[in-house]
């Protein structure tokens, strides 16, 4: 199967007055056509930087290196801004977290949608208008004809997010990157938006890179999940495999941090501490200062991302013992 996105060994660094901040350190991602890959991690772990670099949207202050960067079959490593512009919007598009700041406040949402069709598909204004109203209807906006003339501030948060989704799917792209599309929304609206995204993705067969910090959101959306920690992929596996058998201590921590409505936990289980300072990362495994299972080797040597079970990649020294523990449980 051909891939919608292939990134190999991506490194992003930002030179600052405090020293070089290595935001992304050797991340490899690939997404099949029509697949939904979720990238999960805490704020500051580099997931947004990864998504922006995937679109080549970072400005010149960042130092970006990658061995391979292929979007929809096009090798974009050496692409100029102009070449990327032909790709963005038409074949790859993005959905941002805060719809209010992603939309232009002084332009009606209809005209902003028209722009997509006029710019990328070279439609006439009249055709664009028809397509825009249809696109608004497709994302479940009531009275699309009237909403076409609304300004972003006249719509609710959920409606604005629907407009962004309509815009992202407008040219039927092959890949969409959704950066925390539901974080700013209420739980009931979040449920609506996730349902809509899933429906649109299945209808159009678009590949989706879904970025979130909430494993419970991700487990409802993704086919495959990659957990990111301090600029590196800590674990990557098929959704059901990762949720049923998390191998990395960080993933286990993230999973138990999800507060279910029906669990009878007396106290919450949480991961102690915070992400390491990106300008001053620890030696050895980046997670070891917060890890309850860290041994001596963790403080000295960095673990590598290895395939432990087929399709299940983990970056941890102490894997064998967990697996045997689980084996005993199974017996």
């Amino acid at each position, binding site marked *: 199967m051909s891939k919608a996105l292939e990134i190999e060994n991506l490194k992003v660094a930002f030179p600052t007055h405090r020293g070089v901040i290595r935001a992304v350190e050797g991340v490899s991602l690939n997404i099949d056509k029509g697949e939904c890959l979720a990238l999960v991690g*805490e*704020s*500051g772990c580099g997931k947004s930087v990864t998504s922006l670099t995937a679109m080549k949207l970072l400005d010149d202050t960042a130092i970006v290196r990658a061995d391979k960067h292929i979007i929809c079959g096009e090798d974009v490593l050496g692409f100029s801004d102009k070449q990327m512009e032909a790709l963005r919007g038409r074949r790859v598009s993005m959905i941002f977290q805060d719809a209010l700041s992603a939309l232009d406040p002084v332009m009606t949402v209809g005209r902003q949608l028209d722009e997509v069709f006029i710019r990328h598909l070279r439609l006439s204004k009249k055709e664009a208008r028809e397509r825009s109203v249809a696109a608004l209807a497709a994302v479940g906006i*009531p009275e699309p004809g009237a909403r076409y003339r609304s300004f972003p501030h006249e719509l*609710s*948060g*959920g*409606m604005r997010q629907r407009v962004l989704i309509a815009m992202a799917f407008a040219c039927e792209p092959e890949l969409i990157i959704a950066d925390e599309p539901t974080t700013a929304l*209420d*739980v*009931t*609206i*979040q*449920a*609506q938006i996730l*349902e809509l995204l899933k429906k649109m993705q299945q209808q159009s067969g678009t590949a989706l890179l879904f970025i979130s*910090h*909430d*494993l*419970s*959101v991700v*487990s*409802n959306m993704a086919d495959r999940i990659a957990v990111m920690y301090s600029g590196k992929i800590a674990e990557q596996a098929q959704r059901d495999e990762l*949720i049923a058998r998390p191998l990395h201590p960080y993933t286990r*921590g*993230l*999973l138990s*941090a*999800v*507060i*279910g*409505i*029906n669990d009878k*936990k007396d*106290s*919450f*289980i*949480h*991961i102690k501490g*915070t*992400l390491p300072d990106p300008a001053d990362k620890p030696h050895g495994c980046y997670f070891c200062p917060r890890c309850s299972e860290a041994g001596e080797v963790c403080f000295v040597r960095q673990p590598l991302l290895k395939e432990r079970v087929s399709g299940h990649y983990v970056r941890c020294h102490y894997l064998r013992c967990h697996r045997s523990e689980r084996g005993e449980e199974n017996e």
Partner: protein
Amino acid sequence: MCAAIICVATDLSGVRKMNDKEILVSTRGLSVHFPVKKESTFARRRYIHAVEGVSIDICKGEAFGLVGESGCGKSTLANATLGFVRPTSGEVFFDGAEIGSGKKAALKSARLKMQKIFQNPAASLDPRYSVFKAVSEPLRIRGGYTAKELENEVSAVLERVGLTVSDMSRGVTEFSGGQQQRIAIARALIVKPEYLVCDEPVSALDVSVHAQILDLLVSLQEQLGITYLFISHDLAAVRKLCGTIAIMYLGQIVEYGSAERIFLSPAHPYTRALISAVLSLDGARERIVLKGDAASPIDLPSGCAFAPRCQCAHEKCKSTECRLTRIADDHFCACPYI
């Protein structure tokens, strides 16, 4: 108007009690309306009905959860109990004293016992302040503390919220979101409040940090016996923290009662939808997805405000107003069809 008059007995000493527990904060038929800018000079003045006839009782030492979507008036209700907004009608009592009518003396003495934690600590803390300056500010405003006393108070409260004394001189922006929320909590606790309003204290934070902050709030309540008004749209968090909850929709309370009962047998269709919207890891559960958005609080629909989105709305719902009625000992619901 959904006035739930709960067995409030005024005993001889004048202390208001409910089920033998002392009531700290209560509202009676509280409404708060905000005027909307007129479209022309001669247009009729319109109002946002942020809170509409709400009566709640918060007992001493309990955690009261207020749940609803954004724009349903939960923050306005909380602000009214703090005396930040004047009620359009109805009354607000704090520790037995009426504070809603604008009597400054009553409000001032009540305010000494109240504090609030905001949603986004990065926005509620002054970025130029050090931790010491931020946390000690409420005491400095109150006055009467020497520099040594201030330092002792600050270091004591920092330890209580899980920070260290060495953090005192660092700037507040040097901390992560979760740590900043701890600073905001320390700042609220330093004046030893009886009543603490937590307005979505974890919504702006990472999921991995939610549990830490909720744990801290639970342990602080156990240690200090503070009364919480906990505002959230996340029912899972509310369930962990609160003994009593009220579900709000468009300014009105639609369900009210002990948390245990409401989660066990949610009565109102809106509550059922809210509970089913909480995502779980298995992802397989049947979910009720509400259609559309809440109606505008300016032109409230006649009859039940939830009827346009309700899955089981009857013809009658659109015309008759629902009142909060008792369906069990400690369980009230505003929907007649349950």
